[in-house]
C-alpha cells in the first residue's frame, strides 16, 4: 500500500535512535510484518533501498519476519491460524472469528556500529 511512507517512518525512527543510542551506521534492520498489516513485502524492500539512500542505513540489510494471521474462534474457543480476515475457522467452519494477531508492523531490532 503505502510502503514508501512506511520506509520514511523507518528512516525517521533510525535517525532518532542514532541520536539517542549513539551509532553511526546500521548493518541490519529487522522488521516484524503481520499478514494483516497491509504491507506488500516486495514493495517494502524496494522502498527501503530507495528511501535509505544517503542515510546511515544506506548499506543495511533488511530482514523481514512475516507472521501469520491469527483469530479467536468463538464456537471452538481457541486460537486458530487464518490467511484472510474473513476466513472461516479451519476446524468448525464458523465465521464467528475475531482477528487477534497479524496486524503488527514494527522494527524488531537494529544491528549497528
Amino acid at each position, binding site marked *: *500500500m503505502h510502503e514508501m511512507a*512506511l520506509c520514511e517512518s*523507518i528512516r525517521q525512527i533510525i535517525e532518532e535512535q542514532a541520536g539517542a543510542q549513539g*551509532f553511526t551506521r546500521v548493518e*541490519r534492520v529487522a522488521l516484524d510484518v503481520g499478514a494483516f498489516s497491509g504491507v506488500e513485502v516486495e514493495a517494502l524492500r524496494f522502498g527501503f533501498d530507495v528511501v535509505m539512500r544517503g542515510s546511515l542505513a544506506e548499506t543495511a540489510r533488511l530482514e523481514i519476519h512475516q507472521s501469520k494471521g491469527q483469530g479467536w474462534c468463538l464456537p471452538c474457543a481457541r486460537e486458530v491460524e487464518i490467511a484472510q480476515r474473513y476466513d472461516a475457522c479451519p476446524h468448525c467452519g464458523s*465465521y464467528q472469528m475475531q482477528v487477534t494477531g497479524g496486524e503488527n508492523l514494527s522494527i524488531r*531490532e537494529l544491528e*549497528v*556500529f
Partner: protein
Amino acid sequence: MSQTRLIQLEADILGKNNGYAQANCAQFARDGMFVLNLVSSPGSGKTTLLCKTLEALKDTLDLAVIEGDQQTSADADRIRATGVPAIQVNTGKGCHLDAHMVGHAVESLKPAKGSVLLIENVGNLVCPAGFDLGEAHKVAILSVTEGEDKPLKYPDMFAASDLVLLNKVDLLPHLDFDIEEAEANVRRVNPRARVLRVSARSGEGMEAWMQWLKGGAMMASATLPATAPLAAE
C-alpha cells in the same frame, strides 16, 4: 572490522502517525467535535454525497470539511460552493492523508466547538485504512456501480469502518449488482458495521444517514459546558 551491537526496539512503524492521531483525537474530544473520515474508491460519489449532506445540514449544525486529494482544489471548491468552510490538502505523491496533515489543516480551518468535521480522504481503499487520523469513525462509501465483492477484495478498509454507505442505489434497476450479497460481504469482514442504502442523487436513504450523523454530533458535543444564556438587553 569494528564490532556491531544489537538494539532491541519493538518500535511501531506507524507509531508516529498514531501519536499525532491521539493528539487530534484529544483535541476533538475537548472541543466536543464529531469527526468522520470518509473513505472510498475514486468515483464512488463521495463528494456529491458530501455536498448534499452539507446542504441539508448546514442550517442546523456547524460543519467543516477537510478535502484530501493528490492534486487540484476542485473538490474543496465544490464544497465551498455550499457555504461550508473547507480546506484542501494535496498529498502530492502520497496515497493517503495522515494525522499530521490533518492536525495542520485543523489549525488553519479552526472549526467551531461542537462542530462536525468531515474529512474526505484520498479515493483509495487500501492505504487510508492504516492511517488513523483521530476520527470517531471511518465511513466507507461503496457505490453499486462497483463490484459486490469489494469488501472482500479490500477487507482492511471495510474492517476498519463503522458505517458503510451503499451509494447510487437509484441505479440498481439498471445493474446486475446484488445488494444483498454486497451487504453479506460487508458483514463477513466486519459483523459490527452498520450498512445504509443511499442515493445522493435521488435522496433515497439520506435521512437515515443524516440521523446517524446528527446523533453522533449530539453525543460528541454533550460533554461541552452549556453555553451561558445571553444577557437580556
